[in-house]
Structures are given as C-alpha cells and as structure tokens.
C-alpha cells in the first residue's frame, strides 16, 4: 500500500526566516507529485506539480519554490517567509496524469508565520 508522509506536522516561524517542508511517498514508483496550500478558511490552491525527478512546474507564484531531489521526495521551501504564507500545506500524489486521476493527500503541515 502507498503511504504519504509529510513533515513537520506543524511549524511556527518568524517573518523573514527560511522554510523547508517535505513529503515522501512510499510504495509507488514515479508518482506525480503536487503541493497545495490552504489559507485559514480558504480553498485549496495548487502551487506546484512534478511529473519526474528534477522537474517541477509552478502553478501560482507565492514566493515559494519546490524541488524533487528523489523520485519519492518533494520539498517546498522559501528563503524568506511572509505573513501571507501562513496556512495549511498539503502534499499529494496521483498515479497517472492529473486530468481524471484521484489525488491522495498527505496529512499536511500547519504553518504559522508571526
């Protein structure tokens, strides 16, 4: 069975500090990977997707970056956090192309920027 693990579970960070969030998928080779962001009380906004190692596509610009250093790992980061970065970050994977495929979400990281 496939499992998706996100870390950390929660973070409290200062404005201007760096951030790194991670996601690992086990039990599935070459998954499609995604980062989503959910502001408090807001909808789910897709940030990035990756089809293969080393390739990441940006969907929306939020002064964040993403990388896929290994087949099963997806990293979200920034060098300088803003207050607006607060929210719930979700990693997800899908089996094939995104169009008709189910997304499987991790349990998320809750980020508070002070």
């Amino acid at each position: 069975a496939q499992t998706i693990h996100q870390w950390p579970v929660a973070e409290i960070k200062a404005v201007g500090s760096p951030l790194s969030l991670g996601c690992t998928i086990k039990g599935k080779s070459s998954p499609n990977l995604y980062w989503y962001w959910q502001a408090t009380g807001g909808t789910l906004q897709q940030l990035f997707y990756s089809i293969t190692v080393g390739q990441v596509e940006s969907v929306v610009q939020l002064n964040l970056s993403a990388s896929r250093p290994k087949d099963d790992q997806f990293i979200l980061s920034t060098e300088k956090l803003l207050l607006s970065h607060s929210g719930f970050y979700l990693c997800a994977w899908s089996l094939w192309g995104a169009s008709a495929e189910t997304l499987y979400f991790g349990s998320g990281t809750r980020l508070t920027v002070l």
Partner: protein
Amino acid sequence: GDSVTQTEGLVTLTEGLPVMLNCTYQSTYSPFLFWYVQHLNEAPKLLLKSFTDNKRPEHQGFHATLHKSSSSFHLQKSSAQLSDSALYYCALSSSGSWQLIFGSGTQLTVMP
C-alpha cells in the same frame, strides 16, 4: 479560465433530511469533476468523481451527476447522517491539464 463555483459556504440541516450541495463550473475543454471531503483536522479525501460515460458515481450514500448542459455536478444524499459533517470541495480538471481547481468549499453541519 477554468473555475468552480460553490454557492453555499455553510449548510446546516437535521439528521435524516436530504443533502444537496451545489457545484457549477466553467471549463475550456472536456471536464472531469470531483467531490473531495475534508473532516476536521484531516486531509481531503476523494468522495466521488465523474465518469466519461455519464454513469452516476456513488459512494457512502452520496451521488452526483455531471450535467454538461448546465455545467453542474451537484452532490446529493437522500438522508444526512451526523458523520457527514465535514467540508466538501468540488473540483475540476480539464482534459490534458495538470491542474486540479477547487471551489471555495461548503461546510456541512448535520444536527441531531
């Protein structure tokens, strides 16, 4: 561009009553529609997705029918249960797209 509209932010009803959550969409190409459910402090999970052959998907008593003529994919259930209380998102993906677009969500609260 593609978009999803969920008109109700909050729906409160009594256990046993029927549920209908609205979802309409705009899509440039052939759309795939989904309903995801998110219980408190949990990750979203797929509830239903549309079929290409117009079959009606059903899961846990919920069903939804894709009506291309009215660009709608409303979620329905004949009798609400307390455990149905959750946040429901309608989502859209267009054929060939890598983007899944979510609506603003509808918080369903079922009271005893």
